[in-house]
């Protein structure tokens, strides 16, 4: 089985640190983007299997990245898990409407996150 590639897109370095360790421990290949534009470039360049996408990022927000990815035919199949400290129903609905496959609010339980990621990677995305 090929190693799955996961892209972490978040501007908070300490969160990146924790996520990186977590995912690497699970055996995934991890790459990092620190703002929305970097995220888009990384998705285009590396075609990760899943993107952990923070919403509040400089240059382009997670929503914008999600919309761009879904709008791009070549990248539209990428799995996106949105992470945000904004937990209002409206934000969740907005994220899902823009095409995120799942949405988790921060702070999250690490166990939960890992489980969701595995679940998503197991499913095929049409």
């Amino acid at each position, binding site marked *: 089985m090929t190693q799955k590639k996961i892209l972490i897109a978040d501007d*908070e370095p300490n969160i990146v*640190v*924790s996520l990186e360790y977590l995912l690497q421990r699970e055996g995934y290949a991890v790459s990092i983007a620190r703002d929305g534009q970097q995220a888009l470039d990384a998705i285009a360049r590396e075609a990760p299997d899943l993107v952990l996408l923070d919403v509040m990022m400089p240059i382009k927000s997670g929503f914008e990245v999600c919309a761009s990815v879904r709008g791009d035919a070549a990248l539209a199949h990428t799995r996106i898990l949105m992470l945000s*400290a*904004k937990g209002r129903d409206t934000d969740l609905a907005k994220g899902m409407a823009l095409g995120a496959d799942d949405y988790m609010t921060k*702070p999250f339980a690490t166990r939960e996150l890992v489980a969701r990621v595995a679940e998503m990677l197991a499913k095929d995305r049409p």
Partner: protein
Amino acid sequence: MTAMLPAPLVIGTSLAYLLLLVGVAYWADRRAAARRSVIARPWVYALSMAVYCTAWTYFGSVERAATGGMWFLPIYLGPTLAMVLGWTVLRKMIRIAKTHRITSIADFIASRYGKSQLLATLVTLVAVVGIVPYIALQLKAVSSGYALLTSGSAVAPAHLHWSQDSAFYVAIALAGFAIVFGARHLDTTERHEGMVAAIAFESLVKLAAFLCVGVFVVYGLFGGLGDIFSQARARPELADLLHAEQGGAYSWARWMGLMVLALCAALVLPRQFQVMVVENVHEDHVRRASWMFPLYLLLINLFVLPIALGGLLYFSGGEHNPEHFVLSLPMAAGQNALALFVFIGGLSAATGMVIVETVAVSTMVSNELALPLLLRLRLLGTAHQPRDFTRSLLMIRRAAIVGVLLLGYLYFQLAGDAYALASIGLISFAAVAQFAPVLLGGMYWRGGTRAGALAGLIMGFGVWVYTLMLPSIAKSGWLDVGFLTAGPWGVAWLRPESLWGLQGLDSLTHSLFWSLLINCAAYVIVSLWRAPSGREASQALLFVDVFRRGTAQTPVFWRGRADAAELKRLCERFLGVEKTRELWRSYAKEAGLIADQALVPDARLVQFVEAQLTGAVGSASARVLVASVSDEEALSQGDVLVMLEEASQLRSYSRALETKSRSLEQATSELRSANEQLKSLDRLKDDFMSSVTHELRTPLTSIRALAEILQGDAEVPPQQRQRFVDIIVQETERLTRLVNQVLDMAKIESGHIDWRLADIDVRALLEKAMATTAALLSDRGAEMELDVPQTLPLLHADPDRLLQVLLNLISNAAKFVPPQGGHVQLRARADGQGLTVCVQDNGPGVPAGHEHLIFDRFHQAGGPTPGGQGTGLGLPISHHIVAHFGGRLWLEPPAPGAPPGACFCFWLPWQPAFSGDTAP
């Protein structure tokens, strides 16, 4: 022997002149139809008033001057005074007349006293009786002038047969011209633009002619005014004429009497009413005319006395009648052309008077005498014969004109030669003067009633008949003179010319005195005796208060039921189908209804119809007509007062309603803006909440994640473990800072903070700030410099909060200085009012456009730096702290050409100047 003029020349010139007048009238009517009215100018209005000067001015006043000196003057002083002092009375008359569509003086008086048919009839009869002598005078003047010109002698053979009497032909000719001017068609406004234009023109002509003959006499026959007067003074009998007091005892009474008479006449003569009130185009013209008309009178009277004296001097033989001086003097000097011109002038004056007077009187006769009679006798059929009407009315008017002129001729035949022309005119004045008390009382006294007016008018007129008319007829030989000298049935104190023993006055003043006195007394007493009816009371209010009420506010004094279709048919009969349709449409539009079928026959519609009909047939007839198609309730005086009270209450209610609704509108808009404010504050609060939530959750995320990793995974390499623990601690600190700052912000904004004021040594505080941040700066490889004067006054503020501000600014500076070369300068300066402290760094500076953003909450510039992340709340909190003490915190704009860097400064007053709601 004086020269003569051939009769055809005189007749031809006269006819030509009259046709010229007709041409002027026609032109003016055409212009009026094209809506470019010629007469809508104040000077035309003033000239039209000069119809007051008739052939009497030419012949009568000269005769008066020749026999009595200045005694011709009061006749002209009266109107002068009336215009100069009383033009407001005229203006009120005009306003009333226009408001109520009044078309004659009979209509005015009748309308005022409850639209009384009886009063209208009475006034019309008095007017006819009053003007007949005056018309006779004009006929006499023209015919004797004609005789003088053509035969050299003015004395006409007595009692000519009418077919040989030039006066008869003059009468017929004038009747024809009067019909042409004033009875060609019916106009519901009774305005005759052509006639007014012609009158104005002829006023100019008669003035010109009189001035010409005056100039001729004074400068042609004599050597100027001085010459005439000195020659006159040389003759004893003429010298008397130059004194102002004449006529012995009671002369002042005679003077006053004549002036009062002329003053009244100027207002109430039918011809004056017609040109001044009915034909008035604009109320504002009255003011101008109030000095123009007296000026005209002055000019035309300028040469009267000189001509009289000149004639007496020139014809010292005395066989020449002073009446005809204006003609005989030029003829004697061979100036036939001038004589003809003067004759035309006299003819012009006579024509003007006759035309206007007969047109006015014919309107009264047709509206107030003939029409009601015909209605009563149902000679005009029922509602099913619409078209005969206007033609019948027109026929009646024309017949009235001819009739009045023939009556004038008759009077001329019967009584013309007994009295000099002058007296005839004054008798006529005295008759119509009886209208004055009733008219003026009606305009200014609400208490005048119909019964009072009838009483006054009848009594006054009766006295006039007895004291002036009968004697004049007697003196012409038609009545036994006995009752003049000895009184009727021998009762001495009932003698017509000295009632109750009042001796010494001339008959005119005597008559005037008694008739006006009894008139006024009867009017007042009878008015007070019985209360007025509802209609009288309402009309009284409408007339007297005409300046106080606008038409929109007038209450409608009518109660009853009416049928709209009947009212419409009534209008069509008298105004024509076209006009009625127009009126109905405009009424519906004003009432806001679309179809005129939907018009409700309420009191207002009835009043509207009545007002329109008044213009056509007079108020009394209109009243009768409307009453015939509706079912009315008779209103009493009490009812009227109640209606008035209701109307004024309604007015005050609607005013109160208006102010209430305006204040309601204001309150609504205030509430709306307050709501908007609350909503935006709410939104801000929401934004704040979500920002705070986000900021708190972010460090919590790393803390939780890393802690869970450490908790669940025993195999984390020690290096990683250490790193994770460090991060946890850092983020906890960050979270703590954030929570503290958010709480601070909340406390400051809600005003719940405890401020502890103390006197601060500024230098010490700054040094303390430096010490606290020393480690932070050295970590960044930056150095700090302090630039503070040795002595500074004590600053009264909260030292801890101020330290917080300094630490915030310094740590911001430390965040942005370039690594290993950063320089932060702390500078303090004092001025009279307070302290300025600046923190200057040599970092990149604030990007252009972000100067305002940096003071926003949670705004973090430049991205996070390791080892201490900003919360974005530092500057806003510092800003609030400084503002609380009445100071300012700002970003100093970079000086052009200076090295990059940001300079944050704050200024604080030595003593805090708290703003209203943040004082401790």
